[in-house]
Protein backbone atom coordinates (compact mmCIF):
# COMPACT_ATOMS: atom_id res chain seq x y z
CA UNK A 1 0.00 0.00 0.00
CA UNK A 2 1.22 3.49 -0.77
CA UNK A 3 1.78 5.75 2.19
CA UNK A 4 -0.50 8.39 0.66
CA UNK A 5 -3.54 6.16 1.28
CA UNK A 6 -2.87 6.14 4.99
CA UNK A 7 -2.25 9.89 5.12
CA UNK A 8 -5.48 10.69 3.27
CA UNK A 9 -7.41 8.32 5.55
CA UNK A 10 -5.90 10.09 8.53
CA UNK A 11 -6.99 13.47 7.14
CA UNK A 12 -10.50 12.10 6.66
CA UNK A 13 -10.75 10.84 10.26
CA UNK A 14 -9.36 14.13 11.54
CA UNK A 15 -12.03 16.10 9.72
CA UNK A 16 -14.81 13.84 11.01
CA UNK A 17 -13.51 14.46 14.53
CA UNK A 18 -13.32 18.21 13.94
CA UNK A 19 -16.90 18.26 12.68
CA UNK A 20 -17.99 16.37 15.80
CA UNK A 21 -16.21 18.80 18.12
CA UNK A 22 -17.95 21.71 16.43
CA UNK A 23 -21.46 20.26 16.25
CA UNK A 24 -22.04 18.03 19.27
CA UNK A 25 -23.19 19.51 22.55
CA UNK A 26 -22.48 16.84 25.13
CA UNK A 27 -18.98 17.29 26.56
CA UNK A 28 -18.61 13.51 26.68
CA UNK A 29 -19.03 13.24 22.92
CA UNK A 30 -16.78 16.26 22.41
CA UNK A 31 -14.06 14.37 24.31
CA UNK A 32 -14.67 11.30 22.13
CA UNK A 33 -14.25 13.44 19.02
CA UNK A 34 -11.01 14.83 20.43
CA UNK A 35 -9.85 11.22 20.70
CA UNK A 36 -10.70 10.77 17.03
CA UNK A 37 -8.55 13.75 16.10
CA UNK A 38 -5.62 12.57 18.22
CA UNK A 39 -5.84 9.11 16.69
CA UNK A 40 -5.82 10.57 13.21
CA UNK A 41 -2.61 12.37 14.16
CA UNK A 42 -1.21 9.08 15.44
CA UNK A 43 -2.00 7.34 12.17
CA UNK A 44 -0.23 10.08 10.21
CA UNK A 45 2.80 9.91 12.52
CA UNK A 46 3.10 6.15 12.08
CA UNK A 47 2.61 6.39 8.31
CA UNK A 48 5.40 8.93 8.03
CA UNK A 49 7.56 6.80 10.30
CA UNK A 50 7.14 3.94 7.84
CA UNK A 51 7.83 6.27 4.94
CA UNK A 52 11.13 7.48 6.37
CA UNK A 53 12.09 4.10 7.76
CA UNK A 54 12.69 5.55 11.21
CA UNK A 55 11.02 4.44 14.42
CA UNK A 56 11.02 7.85 16.08
CA UNK A 57 7.57 8.59 14.72
CA UNK A 58 6.26 5.56 16.57
CA UNK A 59 7.73 6.89 19.82
CA UNK A 60 5.95 10.19 19.15
CA UNK A 61 2.71 8.29 18.65
CA UNK A 62 3.23 6.52 21.96
CA UNK A 63 3.71 9.87 23.74
CA UNK A 64 0.57 11.19 22.03
CA UNK A 65 -1.32 8.21 23.44
CA UNK A 66 -0.08 9.11 26.94
CA UNK A 67 -1.20 12.72 26.49
CA UNK A 68 -4.58 11.53 25.22
CA UNK A 69 -5.03 9.32 28.28
CA UNK A 70 -4.24 12.27 30.58
CA UNK A 71 -6.68 14.47 28.68
CA UNK A 72 -9.41 11.85 29.02
CA UNK A 73 -8.83 11.48 32.75
CA UNK A 74 -8.98 15.23 33.42
CA UNK A 75 -11.94 15.75 31.08
CA UNK A 76 -13.97 12.97 32.62
CA UNK A 77 -13.10 14.30 36.09
CA UNK A 78 -14.48 17.69 35.08
CA UNK A 79 -17.66 16.07 33.74
CA UNK A 80 -18.17 14.13 36.97
CA UNK A 81 -17.61 17.34 38.96
CA UNK A 82 -20.18 19.11 36.75
CA UNK A 83 -22.65 16.31 37.38
CA UNK A 84 -22.09 16.57 41.15
CA UNK A 85 -22.63 20.33 41.19
CA UNK A 86 -25.85 19.90 39.17
CA UNK A 87 -24.43 21.93 36.30
CA UNK A 88 -26.16 21.05 33.00
CA UNK A 89 -24.03 18.65 30.94
CA UNK A 90 -24.15 20.81 27.85
CA UNK A 91 -21.32 22.81 26.36
CA UNK A 92 -23.73 25.48 25.10
CA UNK A 93 -25.05 26.11 28.60
CA UNK A 94 -21.58 26.50 30.05
CA UNK A 95 -21.06 30.14 29.19
CA UNK A 96 -19.81 31.42 32.53
CA UNK A 97 -16.24 31.79 31.39
CA UNK A 98 -17.27 33.77 28.35
CA UNK A 99 -15.67 37.22 28.59
Amino acid at each position, binding site marked *: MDIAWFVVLSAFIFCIGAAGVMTRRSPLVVLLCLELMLNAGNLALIAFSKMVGNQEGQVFALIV*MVVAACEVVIGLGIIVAMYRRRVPIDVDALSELRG
Partner: protein
Amino acid sequence: MLFEQFLFFVAGFGAVAGALGVVLLRNPFFSVLSLVAHLISLAVLFLLLSAAFLAAAQVVVYAGAVMVLYVFVVAYVGGTEEDVRPLATGAVGSLGPLFAGALLIELTIAVIGSSLSALDGEGADIGASFGSPGEIGQLLLTKFLLPFEAASFLLLIAAVGAVVLARKRRGLEEPEQAISVADLMRSDVGTQKEAAG
Protein backbone atom coordinates in the same frame (compact mmCIF):
# COMPACT_ATOMS: atom_id res chain seq x y z
CA MET B 1 0.09 -7.69 -1.69
CA LEU B 2 -3.52 -8.23 -2.61
CA PHE B 3 -4.28 -9.40 0.89
CA GLU B 4 -2.65 -6.26 2.25
CA GLN B 5 -4.84 -4.03 0.11
CA PHE B 6 -7.93 -5.97 1.10
CA LEU B 7 -7.01 -5.58 4.76
CA PHE B 8 -6.39 -1.86 4.31
CA PHE B 9 -9.77 -1.24 2.77
CA VAL B 10 -11.63 -3.33 5.34
CA ALA B 11 -9.85 -1.64 8.25
CA GLY B 12 -10.08 1.80 6.67
CA PHE B 13 -13.80 1.39 6.10
CA GLY B 14 -14.17 0.25 9.70
CA ALA B 15 -12.21 3.24 10.98
CA VAL B 16 -14.24 5.75 8.99
CA ALA B 17 -17.54 4.07 9.90
CA GLY B 18 -16.56 4.07 13.57
CA ALA B 19 -15.63 7.75 13.41
CA LEU B 20 -18.92 8.61 11.72
CA GLY B 21 -20.75 6.59 14.35
CA VAL B 22 -19.09 8.58 17.14
CA VAL B 23 -20.27 11.84 15.61
CA LEU B 24 -23.73 10.81 14.39
CA LEU B 25 -25.08 8.45 17.05
CA ARG B 26 -27.30 10.17 19.57
CA ASN B 27 -26.74 8.01 22.63
CA PRO B 28 -23.28 8.69 24.14
CA PHE B 29 -23.04 5.02 25.12
CA PHE B 30 -23.27 3.91 21.49
CA SER B 31 -20.76 6.62 20.60
CA VAL B 32 -18.28 5.06 23.01
CA LEU B 33 -18.85 1.58 21.55
CA SER B 34 -18.40 3.00 18.07
CA LEU B 35 -15.10 4.54 19.16
CA VAL B 36 -13.96 1.10 20.37
CA ALA B 37 -14.62 -0.32 16.89
CA HIS B 38 -12.75 2.63 15.38
CA LEU B 39 -9.74 2.06 17.65
CA ILE B 40 -9.53 -1.63 16.83
CA SER B 41 -9.67 -0.86 13.10
CA LEU B 42 -6.88 1.65 13.62
CA ALA B 43 -4.83 -1.04 15.36
CA VAL B 44 -5.12 -3.17 12.20
CA LEU B 45 -3.87 -0.20 10.18
CA PHE B 46 -0.94 0.18 12.59
CA LEU B 47 -0.09 -3.48 11.98
CA LEU B 48 -0.11 -2.83 8.24
CA LEU B 49 2.40 -0.04 8.85
CA SER B 50 4.58 -2.53 10.79
CA ALA B 51 4.03 -0.90 14.15
CA ALA B 52 3.32 -4.06 16.11
CA PHE B 53 3.96 -2.67 19.57
CA LEU B 54 1.76 0.36 19.02
CA ALA B 55 -1.04 -1.82 17.67
CA ALA B 56 -0.94 -3.93 20.82
CA ALA B 57 -0.80 -0.82 23.03
CA GLN B 58 -3.72 0.66 21.12
CA VAL B 59 -5.90 -2.37 21.75
CA VAL B 60 -4.87 -2.94 25.37
CA VAL B 61 -4.56 0.64 26.65
CA TYR B 62 -6.98 2.54 24.46
CA ALA B 63 -9.71 0.13 23.53
CA GLY B 64 -9.36 -1.59 26.87
CA ALA B 65 -8.57 0.76 29.74
CA VAL B 66 -9.51 4.22 28.51
CA MET B 67 -12.80 3.11 27.00
CA VAL B 68 -13.77 1.33 30.23
CA LEU B 69 -13.29 4.71 31.95
CA TYR B 70 -15.60 6.28 29.37
CA VAL B 71 -18.24 3.59 29.83
CA PHE B 72 -18.15 4.08 33.60
CA VAL B 73 -18.61 7.84 33.30
CA VAL B 74 -21.41 7.48 30.75
CA ALA B 75 -23.15 5.05 33.08
CA TYR B 76 -22.63 7.40 36.03
CA VAL B 77 -23.70 10.63 34.38
CA GLY B 78 -26.44 8.87 32.46
CA GLY B 79 -26.56 8.67 28.71
CA THR B 80 -28.89 11.55 28.06
CA GLU B 81 -30.41 11.37 24.62
CA GLU B 82 -29.38 14.60 23.02
CA ASP B 83 -30.51 15.62 19.60
CA VAL B 84 -27.92 16.50 17.06
CA ARG B 85 -28.88 19.98 16.07
CA PRO B 86 -26.05 21.65 14.25
CA LEU B 87 -28.22 24.50 13.06
CA ALA B 88 -29.50 25.59 16.43
CA THR B 89 -26.29 26.94 17.83
CA GLY B 90 -26.07 29.97 15.60
CA ALA B 91 -23.64 30.81 12.88
CA VAL B 92 -20.75 28.85 14.37
CA GLY B 93 -22.80 25.66 14.68
CA SER B 94 -24.13 25.84 11.14
CA LEU B 95 -20.70 26.56 9.76
CA GLY B 96 -19.15 23.61 11.63
CA PRO B 97 -19.64 20.83 9.05
CA LEU B 98 -18.83 23.29 6.28
CA PHE B 99 -15.59 24.18 7.99
CA ALA B 100 -14.74 20.50 8.47
CA GLY B 101 -15.35 19.84 4.78
CA ALA B 102 -13.12 22.74 3.82
CA LEU B 103 -10.46 21.40 6.17
CA LEU B 104 -10.67 17.98 4.49
CA ILE B 105 -10.32 19.45 1.02
CA GLU B 106 -7.41 21.57 2.13
CA LEU B 107 -5.61 18.65 3.81
CA THR B 108 -6.16 16.40 0.81
CA ILE B 109 -4.79 19.04 -1.54
CA ALA B 110 -1.83 19.48 0.77
CA VAL B 111 -1.12 15.74 0.78
CA ILE B 112 -1.65 15.11 -2.91
CA GLY B 113 -0.01 18.32 -4.03
CA SER B 114 3.02 17.98 -1.81
CA SER B 115 6.22 17.21 -3.58
CA LEU B 116 6.96 14.30 -1.27
CA SER B 117 7.62 11.65 -3.86
CA ALA B 118 8.07 9.08 -1.10
CA LEU B 119 4.33 9.29 -0.42
CA ASP B 120 3.70 7.27 -3.56
CA GLY B 121 5.89 4.41 -2.45
CA GLU B 122 5.72 1.63 0.05
CA GLY B 123 8.11 3.42 2.37
CA ALA B 124 11.72 2.82 3.13
CA ASP B 125 13.25 -0.62 3.43
CA ILE B 126 12.88 -1.76 6.99
CA GLY B 127 14.08 -4.72 8.92
CA ALA B 128 11.94 -7.42 10.42
CA SER B 129 12.22 -5.97 13.90
CA PHE B 130 10.87 -2.55 12.89
CA GLY B 131 8.38 -1.41 15.52
CA SER B 132 8.95 -4.32 17.85
CA PRO B 133 8.73 -3.70 21.62
CA GLY B 134 12.47 -4.11 21.99
CA GLU B 135 13.33 -1.43 19.48
CA ILE B 136 10.74 1.02 20.78
CA GLY B 137 11.85 0.40 24.36
CA GLN B 138 15.47 0.98 23.44
CA LEU B 139 14.56 4.31 21.82
CA LEU B 140 12.49 5.31 24.83
CA LEU B 141 15.29 4.60 27.27
CA THR B 142 18.13 6.14 25.28
CA LYS B 143 17.22 8.88 22.85
CA PHE B 144 13.82 9.79 24.26
CA LEU B 145 14.56 9.36 27.96
CA LEU B 146 13.51 12.91 28.86
CA PRO B 147 10.11 12.78 27.08
CA PHE B 148 9.57 9.35 28.62
CA GLU B 149 10.10 10.68 32.15
CA ALA B 150 8.04 13.78 31.38
CA ALA B 151 5.20 11.53 30.22
CA SER B 152 5.33 9.56 33.45
CA PHE B 153 5.13 12.81 35.46
CA LEU B 154 2.23 13.92 33.28
CA LEU B 155 0.37 10.70 34.06
CA LEU B 156 0.99 11.15 37.78
CA ILE B 157 -0.25 14.74 37.71
CA ALA B 158 -3.33 13.71 35.71
CA ALA B 159 -4.17 10.95 38.19
CA VAL B 160 -3.88 13.29 41.16
CA GLY B 161 -5.82 15.99 39.31
CA ALA B 162 -8.66 13.61 38.48
CA VAL B 163 -8.96 12.63 42.14
CA VAL B 164 -9.01 16.29 43.20
CA LEU B 165 -11.58 17.20 40.53
CA ALA B 166 -13.99 14.35 41.08
CA ARG B 167 -14.00 14.11 44.86
CA LYS B 168 -16.93 15.34 46.90
CA ARG B 169 -16.47 18.97 47.82
CA ARG B 170 -18.84 19.36 50.69
CA GLY B 171 -16.58 21.95 52.30
CA LEU B 172 -17.48 24.58 49.74
CA GLU B 173 -21.20 24.71 50.44
CA GLU B 174 -21.33 24.13 54.18
CA PRO B 175 -18.13 24.68 56.15
CA GLU B 176 -17.71 21.87 58.60
CA GLN B 177 -17.80 22.61 62.28
CA ALA B 178 -14.28 22.17 63.44
CA ILE B 179 -13.92 21.44 67.11
CA SER B 180 -10.74 22.77 68.56
CA VAL B 181 -9.23 22.48 72.00
CA ALA B 182 -10.08 26.12 72.67
CA ASP B 183 -13.81 25.32 72.49
CA LEU B 184 -13.47 22.70 75.17
CA MET B 185 -11.42 24.93 77.42
CA ARG B 186 -13.91 27.79 77.36
CA SER B 187 -16.14 27.55 80.37
CA ASP B 188 -18.95 29.90 79.34
CA VAL B 189 -20.65 27.90 76.56
CA GLY B 190 -21.46 24.27 76.18
CA THR B 191 -20.36 23.16 79.58
CA GLN B 192 -22.20 20.96 82.03
CA LYS B 193 -22.82 23.89 84.31
CA GLU B 194 -24.67 25.73 81.52
CA ALA B 195 -26.70 22.68 80.59
CA ALA B 196 -27.73 22.17 84.14
CA GLY B 197 -29.07 25.72 84.16
